Every structure is written in structure tokens, then in C-alpha cells.
């Protein structure tokens, strides 16, 4: 094989990974930003996998009924708000553990979505439109890699906005205070419980929108294997990103690229060891978790009120 073809193959693999990252990362991005808001307020919502799946189902159903995929996205967000309110409300009761409630709501959300989603498997709902960022290129591969959905730039902008808000805005600082030291927040007159419930509902909204992306854009179909644990991985990703929205966005893109690695390599003719490459996102989750949980090191950036930082 000559060097030029090697270079071409490498370029084409890089393009495939970029395309994969742009296509696959959006649900990770939305769920992790949602979880970031929730955790900043001092609560952990492990149930976002259920919210994601319920949002995917609700969004698909509403898009099918109304013919408008954007109404579907809104409905998915509202499903998420309801799940978030439920989680936030339950966790505000005395002696309720948010991690246990989260696991319960994960099973509840997926179960409810599967039950209500039975009639949605066969029909085709209207899909969200895509934006052709690669229209300038005459290379079909470049065009397809840069064919994105508008939710991706919205998510990236939101990451920037949250980054600013957590540092500089009044409500962002209030949220962080509630998450870091509830007693101090109470002393300053902030309503701790309503802020936490609101943060969980907002997080649920974003996770629901992430679900709508799955069912209404990519892969763009409703079935019961749709999420394959993306909601759970996104929760792990927040810890790896150390509660920074910008790092969440980077990590989401990284996870998207890792998910694209297996198919991309095989389509290039690199066929050995595909089980290993297919497992890349899961291996990455484990490796990053292990790396970011070095014993003896404090969790830099972790909100002080999170149940796992409390001893």
C-alpha cells in the first residue's frame, strides 16, 4: 500500500469519527448538561436513563400525532419535567435517598415508555430536519459528516451559557450555594427545597430533549433497544467532567466518537478485534471513572451536598 492511500484512509477514518461524534454525541450532551444542573443543586438523579427513554417515546408519539417534530421535542422535554418533578418531590421527603429514587425512576421511566410505546414501533413519525454544514464541499463523505441537527449547536451554546451562568449569574450562584452548603443557603434566605426541585425538573427537561433527538433524528426510530444505556453513561460523564458544562460538551463529543469507532474501522476494512472497538464507549466509561476516582484525592469540583460526598 502506498503512502498516499494510507493518508487517504486515515483522513477518511478521521472524517468518519468526526461525523460519528457529531451524530451520536447530542443525547450524551443534553443528558449530561441536565445532570450537571441537578447535581450542582446537591442532588443526584440516576433516573435520567428512564427520562431519556420516556422522552424518546413521548417525542416520537407526539410527532406522529401532530405531524410536527418540534412539538415532539417540546413534549419530550415536558415528559422530562414531570419525571424531574417526581424525583425532586420524592427526594424532598424526609429520609429519602436520591440514588435509590433515581434507580426506581429509571425502571419506572423505561417500563412506562415500553408499555405506552408498543403502538409506536411500526409507524414512521416525521423527523427533525438536518442542517447541511458541509454544503461547500463536493466530497460526499465531508457533506455527510457535517450534516447535523440544530439541537447539537443548541446544546453546545447551552453548555457555554451554563458555564457562564454557574460563575456569574445570580441564579447560578444561588444554585451552587444550595448544592455546596444548604445551611448557608438557608441562612441567606434561599429556598433550598424549591431550588433543588426546580433544578431536577430543568435537568429532566434536557434529558427528555436528548431522548427526542434519539427517536426523531438519529437513529430516528422508536424501539425498545433505542438507548442502550446512553443515559447512564451520560451521568458517569458528568463526574468525569467534574461538573463543568464545557468539559461535559467535550466529553460528550469524545463518547460520540468512541461509539463510532467500531463501525468506522470495519467500514474501512480494518476488521480485526471489532468486539474490542465496539466496546470502546463502555471501556472509556470505566477507564475514565477509574482515572478520575484516584483514592486519597478529593473530588475537585464536586458539590458539597451530594449524598456521595457526605460522610
Amino acid at each position, binding site marked *: 500500500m502506498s503512502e498516499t492511500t494510507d493518508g487517504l484512509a486515515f483522513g477518511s477514518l478521521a472524517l468518519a469519527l468526526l461525523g460519528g461524534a457529531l451524530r451520536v454525541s447530542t443525547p450524551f450532551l443534553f443528558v449530561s448538561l441536565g445532570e450537571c444542573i441537578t447535581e450542582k443543586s446537591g442532588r443526584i438523579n440516576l433516573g435520567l436513563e428512564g427520562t431519556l427513554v420516556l422522552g424518546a417515546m413521548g417525542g416520537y408519539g407526539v410527532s406522529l400525532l401532530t405531524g410536527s417534530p418540534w412539538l415532539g421535542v417540546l413534549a419530550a422535554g415536558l415528559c422530562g419535567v414531570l419525571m424531574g418533578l417526581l424525583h425532586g418531590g420524592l427526594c424532598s421527603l424526609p429520609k429519602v435517598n436520591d440514588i435509590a429514587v433515581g434507580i426506581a425512576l429509571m425502571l419506572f421511566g423505561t417500563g412506562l415508555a415500553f408499555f405506552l410505546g408498543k403502538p409506536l414501533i411500526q409507524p414512521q413519525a416525521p423527523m427533525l430536519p438536518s442542517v447541511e454544514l458541509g454544503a461547500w464541499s463536493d466530497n460526499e463523505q465531508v457533506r455527510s*459528516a457535517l450534516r447535523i441537527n440544530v439541537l447539537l449547536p443548541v446544546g453546545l451554546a447551552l453548555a457555554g451559557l451554563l458555564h457562564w451562568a454557574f460563575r456569574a449569574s445570580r441564579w447560578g450562584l444561588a444554585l451552587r450555594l444550595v448544592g455546596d452548603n444548604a445551611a448557608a443557603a438557608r441562612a441567606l434566605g434561599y429556598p433550598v427545597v424549591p431550588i433543588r426541585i426546580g433544578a431536577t425538573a430543568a435537568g429532566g427537561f434536557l434529558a427528555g430533549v436528548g431522548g427526542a433527538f434519539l427517536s426523531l433524528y438519529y437513529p430516528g426510530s422508536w424501539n425498545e433497544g433505542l438507548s442502550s444505556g446512553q443515559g447512564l453513561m451520560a451521568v458517569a460523564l458528568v463526574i468525569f467532567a467534574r461538573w463543568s458544562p464545557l468539559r461535559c460538551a467535550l466529553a460528550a463529543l469524545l463518547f460520540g466518537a468512541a461509539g463510532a469507532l467500531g*463501525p468506522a474501522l470495519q467500514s474501512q476494512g480494518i476488521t480485526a478485534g471489532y468486539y474490542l472497538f465496539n466496546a470502546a464507549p463502555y471501556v472509556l466509561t470505566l477507564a475514565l471513572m477509574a482515572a478520575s476516582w484516584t483514592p486519597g484525592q478529593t473530588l475537585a469540583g464536586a458539590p458539597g451536598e451530594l449524598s456521595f460526598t457526605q460522610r
Partner: protein
Amino acid sequence: MAQTRFSAGRRDILRILGSGAAVSALPFGIGLAGAADKLVVGVIYVGPRDDFGYNQAQAQAVAALKKMPGVKVVEEEKVPETVAVQKTMEAMINQDKASLIFATSFGYFDPHVLKMAEKYPNVRFAHCGGLWTAGKHPKNVGSFFGYIDECQYLDGIAAASASKSKKLGFIAAKPIPQVLRNINAFLLGARSVDPKATVKVIFTGDWSLPVKEAEAANSLIDQGVDVLTCHVDSPKVIVETAERRGVYSCGYHASQAKLAPKGYLTGAEWDWQTPYTQIVKATLDGKPMVNFLRGGLKDGFVKPSPFGPAVSAEAKKKSEAVKAAMLKGDFPIFKGPLLDNTGKTVIAAGKVLGQQDPLLESMNYLVDGVIGQV
């Protein structure tokens, strides 16, 4: 108190743990053992019964069983190919008094079905896709399957006729013999039209991974592939992705023609009603277990989807001629000389493997022209 509840509802708890399968399983009368005079048939699926694909094809045959007099059906969906399926089988046998079990996913066979068959010699186990061997496997186990590679060969003819780049793509779940046989038959059908046609294979690793399947479809199309087909449980995502990207597709398990009105060429579909009713009738009549049941186009176990608008008249004619030969039973797909894609001879010159040949059911190679690795 808590203890009694646990042991009484072990199956319920398993169902709840099966990530929400509980809700969908409720209508099937948990704990209501069938009336003593009825044959209770247990059916186990690896995915949801309405997946627009593999499990749905099985469930359609089961729906026909439910109408048979003297038969009561209990079903469980989304049972993984692990020790979980043994627990499901034991629960069906002990609590529902099932005496015939259909285990419909490939990975259930060895060791799960074989183990249960030894433990419960009076229960019959019918497995879809396994290779039952006389003398080696228990007599109360049987395997049934269809020669769907015949339809895959016909798909290959339509695919290579429609393709401009002569690069075809195959998205597969796992490299098991049936999948490899389908890939190889698809390539041989394509090569009967154009000897230079190639098939690129992507293995996703599991039966239902929609995001990975869409990603595989996109990366194949980016590499110049212009016809896609697959062997996964729900081909919907792949067929839809192909249609959106403007390339052709061939369906699998059931007809996905509605999903791709422009690009759907044809497809390979199951019709499981024949083997299901045959096995249940043998059980009702007290005849011995049907240990090895196979059939192809001729026997009505499989059928091709009707041609889509993109199939040329010439391709139709060629496909119909091969189909007619298959229906007569004189069209062996695999014959020598045949090389695998590492250059090794897998079928020697002059040797012809008939469709019924068990050698084909332990296929572990991809033939020359397939780009991929087992």
C-alpha cells in the same frame, strides 16, 4: 412475611428486573397454571414481540398457535441469552406447567436448553436455529430453522443489478453460522450478476443496537456502498437510514417495503407457522419430538418480499428463474470450487453441498469477495 412473598413471586420479580418488561408481561396470567387438559406451550423471545423483525416473525406464528384447540400459550419477552433463560424455562415448567417450550433465540441452545432438557426429560424443547445432533443431544430437544439463505441469494441478485458501485453492505449482529451463511449467500447471488461485486460486512456485536446500526449504515454509505442489507433483529433503522441517504436496501425477517418506498429492492422473510404447528401437533398427538426440522422456499418456511420499483425487468427475470429452480429443489447455493476471503479452499472443486447438508450449519468462514473478518 417478606420471605413468603419473595418465593411466591420469584418470576414476577425477575420480570420487573427485566427492565420494565413487567408491564408488558402482565396480560399473561402470572401464576395461573393452565387447565390440566390443555397443552401449555411456553415461548421465549430475546427481544420485544413487536420489533418489526425477528421476534415479530416468531410471534406471528405463536398467534396462530393460540387459535389451536387444546393449546394454551405463555410467553416471555426480552429474555437475555444468559442463565436468565434457564430461570424463565424453569418458571414456565414449574409454575405454568408448560410441557413444550419454544426457545427462539440462537444463544439459548447451548448450554441453556440442553441443560434444562436433561433436568426435565418429560418436557419438550423446540429451539430455533440450533444444530441438533443425534446421539449427542437429548431426544426431547428439537431444532427448527429455515433456509433463508435462499432468499438472501435472491436479494444478492437484485442488489448487484441495482448497484452502480458494485459495493454492497451487510450489517450483521454476531458472526454465528446462520449469519455467515446469509452473508455468503448474498455475495454469491450478487456475484452471479457481476463477478466483481463485493460485500462489506460490519458486525455490531448484538441483536439490537439501533445507534450502532445507524452508524454502521452511514459509514458504509460513506465508503461508496449503495445497497444495504442486514442480519439484526429490527432492520427498521437500517432500511430507513438507507432511504434517507438515497441508497437501496434489502429487508430481513419481515417486509420493510413501507419504510423505503423508493429504495426497497426486495427482502428475505420468515413464515414460521408451518414448523410451529407441526411441532405442536406432534406433541398433542403424543408422537415423538421432531428433532430436526428444516425447510426453505419450497416448504414455505421463507419467502422473498415483493420487488420494489427500483428493480429492473432484467433483474426480476433472473431472480424469478433462480427462484423457480429453488422451488424445484435443484439449486444448490454452495458448491466448489469455493474460496474463503483468506484464500483457503472451503469447498473443493466438484463438490456440491445441498441445502440440507449439516456442514453448512457450522459455517465459520466468509467467502472470497466479502470484506470482513469472523
